[in-house]
């Protein structure tokens, strides 16, 4: 895996290349390659050049930081003032927020350059990015296969080197799973570590903005900048992570206790299981201690996740009614008809499915049996995980039970698709951090990802373990050839 941010930063500060020149390279690459990958759904090239000029000024004045002048992308559900942000949904067609998300405010202050918004499952609901109203993005590793979802466009762009890094969102695995499918790094921070202000909400108690990058170090550098308590988000937490990127150089896993739960490997395909166990052996050979842990509640995590996520989503998506922003039908006789038509015509099938599910589990007569029960079970799962982290420092598990599906895979019903989230959703339910790193390719040449999970606010620990692996193990997922070369 290659580091991109630090080397680029060095080239920029030494004057070897200007941010404007670098940005122009990325722009050409996008103009050429996006036709193939459909990663970007909207581009902000003029703004990018402006950002780049400002960055060059910062560099000249000696005020640059690692992220200054480096072109990146935001998932299409993260707001930036004046730029199309549509959640890849017809219902937000033409929508431009009039404010910046906190993460973009922070990145902009460091002189980051935004190239455009990248593709996703509509309203982040999905695991393949195929529910996008702009069509699916393609997996650069094999364009007959999906990128995964819902941050599929971000993963595709970062993998194909048409963005140096990207910010996605992870509610049930949407940063980690596409990272795994595309063979790149995906970090989901602790719930509350990164402000959600400006992230268009799907499941409020589950959503977190995460980082997709080509190396663990890059993810750490970005996380160090975007994390932090925010007065615009009362669920954000004031925790001092220290400078994680710098701490990586001392990364060591000797004596680290690694928890392996059999429940995580049930129903996982053989090649993936083997790949993960090989990685675990690598850790063991380097001084880590493997601890057998029990997670019987794991299988309850899926229904708990879908009940809570859909319930919150059914409420969060109520505001899309055609009155203040977004799509509005051509003709209607009254307000009620307008709202009905807006939502009927504007939302895709998967979104409608989840809204109906969410409305049902919250409705009178069913609330106790579904939503309330799910919340109580959630507490149990949280307690179990806390208990586990008394026995070990990190948990290692597969990121997904499969590698990238073929496009338009008809073999799966919606519920089958939901089941594929088994490895990732427990992390969102408990709010703990997790990072997915590539391990090796399967026999079809598709990447397999390993998840390193820690307790709340242990980003430093999991990234140290991930970095150690990346640097010292024989990672058999090649650097992608294409896009902008360093």
């Amino acid at each position, binding site marked *: 895996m290659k580091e991109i941010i630090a080397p680029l930063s060095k080239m920029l500060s030494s004057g070897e290349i200007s941010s404007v020149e670098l940005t122009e390279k990325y722009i050409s690459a996008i103009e050429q390659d996006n036709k193939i990958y459909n990663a970007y759904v909207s581009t902000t090239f003029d703004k990018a050049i402006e950002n780049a000029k400002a960055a060059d000024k910062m560099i000249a004045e000696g005020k640059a930081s690692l992220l200054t002048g480096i072109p990146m992308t935001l998932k299409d559900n993260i707001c930036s003032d004046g730029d199309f942000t549509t959640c890849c949904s017809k219902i937000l067609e033409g929508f431009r927020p009039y404010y910046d998300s906190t993460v973009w405010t922070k990145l902009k202050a460091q002189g980051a350059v935004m190239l455009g918004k990248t593709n996703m499952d509509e309203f982040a609901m999905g695991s393949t990015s195929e529910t996008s109203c702009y069509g699916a993005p393609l997996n650069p590793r094999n364009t007959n296969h999906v990128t995964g979802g819902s941050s599929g466009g971000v993963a595709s762009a970062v993998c194909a080197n048409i963005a140096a890094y990207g910010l996605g969102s992870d509610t049930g695995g949407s940063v980690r799973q596409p990272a795994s499918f595309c063979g790149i790094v995906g970090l989901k921070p602790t719930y509350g570590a990164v402000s959600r202000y400006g992230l268009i909400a799907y499941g*409020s108690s589950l959503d977190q903005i995460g980082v997709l990058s080509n190396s663990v170090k890059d993810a750490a550098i970005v996380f160090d900048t975007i994390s932090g308590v925010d007065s615009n*988000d009362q669920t954000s937490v004031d925790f001092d992570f220290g400078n994680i990127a710098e701490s990586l150089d001392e990364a060591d896993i000797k004596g680290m206790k690694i928890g392996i739960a059999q429940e995580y490997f049930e129903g996982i395909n053989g090649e993936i299981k083997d790949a993960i166990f090989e990685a675990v052996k690598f850790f063991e050979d380097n001084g880590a201690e493997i601890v057998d842990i029990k997670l019987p509640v794991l299988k309850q995590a899926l229904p708990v996740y879908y009940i809570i996520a859909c319930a919150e989503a059914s*409420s969060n998506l109520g505001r899309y009614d055609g009155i*203040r922003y977004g799509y509005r039908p051509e003709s209607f006789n009254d307000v009620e008809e307008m709202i009905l038509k807006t939502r009927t015509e504007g939302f895709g099938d998967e979104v409608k499915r989840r809204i109906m599910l969410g409305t049902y589990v919250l409705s*009178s007569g069913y609330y106790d049996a579904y939503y309330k029960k799910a919340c109580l079970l959630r507490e149990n799962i949280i307690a179990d995980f806390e208990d586990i982290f008394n026995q070990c420092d990190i948990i290692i598990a597969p990121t997904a039970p499969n590698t990238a599906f073929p496009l338009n895979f008809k073999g799966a019903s919606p519920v089958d698709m939901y089941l594929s989230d088994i490895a990732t959703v427990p992390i969102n339910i408990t709010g703990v951090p997790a990072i997915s790193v590539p391990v090796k390719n399967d026999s079809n040449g598709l990447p397999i990802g390993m998840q390193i999970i820690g307790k709340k606010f242990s980003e430093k620990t999991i990234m140290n373990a991930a970095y150690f692996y990346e640097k010292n193990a024989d990672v058999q997922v090649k650097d992608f050839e294409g896009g902008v070369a360093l």
Partner: protein
Amino acid sequence: MSYQLVCGIETHIELATKTKIFCGCTTQFGGEPNTHCCPVCTGQPGSLPILNRQVIEFAVKAGLAVNCKINNNSHMDRKNYVYPDLPKAYQISQFDEPLCVDGYVELDSGKKIRIERIHIEEDAGKLVHDGGYTYVDYNRGGVPLIEIVSMADISSPEEAREYAEKLQLIMRNVGVSDCKMQEGSMRCDVNISIHQPGEPWGTRTEIKNINSLSNIVRAMELEMERQEDILDAGDKVIQSTMRYDANSDTVYVLRSKENADDYRYFPEPDILRFYVSPEKVEEIRATLPELPDAKLKRYVDDMGLPENNARLIYKYRNVTRFFDDAVNEGAGAGNVLNMIISTVYAVLQTEEDKENFDIKITSHQLAELVKLIDSKKIRANKAKEVLAQMLESGKDVTEYIKAEDLAGLSDEDLKALCQGAIDANPKAVEDIKNGKDKAINVMFGYVMKNSRGKADVKKAEEIIRELIK
């Protein structure tokens, strides 16, 4: 057929915080439409609510003022429904853990109207209908509200009015709201049902859009009549939402509520649970001012002031503070009160004037004037004239009453005047000697006139009678 009334009232009160409940927009009334807005209160995608701590403090204060118990642990819930004035398609409110519970308002009769709960929530925007179109103004969206729910303890329209009026008085005096029904900062929804004595309670209807205290009575009377007519005819009352229209003085069905709305309440995930410590509650309790009914009691029972006069000031926080401050400086309560209701009120004529209390003099300046009346250095009528002038100029009493005006009448001067009175009125002297005692009034008149009102009448009488002998 004589029916009994069962009535409960839900009151929404806009809290007078500077900014809205979940964002920093101003709560100021009026303004061009959609100018007091931001991403949060217009429900823009990606926005998040930030709970305003002062809202909790105001709500706790309001709860304590009506004798509620405060829930130390509380949280917000989402109430989901669709309406154009509700930008998020849910209202952030409180469902099963309201901030305040189990309070009461005591009516003059001693009857307590129990308060079931008080919770905090956000207001919706305003719909404006014009020329066949409907416009939405989100300025009001996000303004903090408390919803006060009474138990069905009210048994007459007059009790309903009194309950609402007392709530209004209390909340104004405690400073959490200006409670102006005509501006919408206080809204009462009245729920009523009627039944035959001994029978179970009837089906209730809810009356909305009542915009004044007297219209509470009117709307209830109309609705009671309507329900009586229905029951007398042998029909059933249908559970509905009614609307009172002041222009046509009618109550009519807005919508029937055969099926209760399902709001799918669930805890608001964007706002964490909050905790108001017992210490904080006591801290807030200590800031509660003396409430109007307690003040009235003090004025009448402790100070011995005439009740009808005390009632003229007891409602107004600023007036009573002015009164109490002057009295605390040593000015006589009766005289201070009289000066206020006669002369100060001539300048503060409307309710609003009395609430705003925009006058040019301080309680100290009034006290100085009243002390002169108390020590009989000037007469009340003179004082009123002077006060009127002080209110216009803002100047001290010393501007208008000079030292020599205040100089008392010496005993010699008084005696001289009395002698003068006798000399000038020989016939009166004759009359007195002949038993027509009333003639002495002429003498008094002389003495008062020539002493410019400073003479002590009793003393003068003694002297005159002595001299006549």
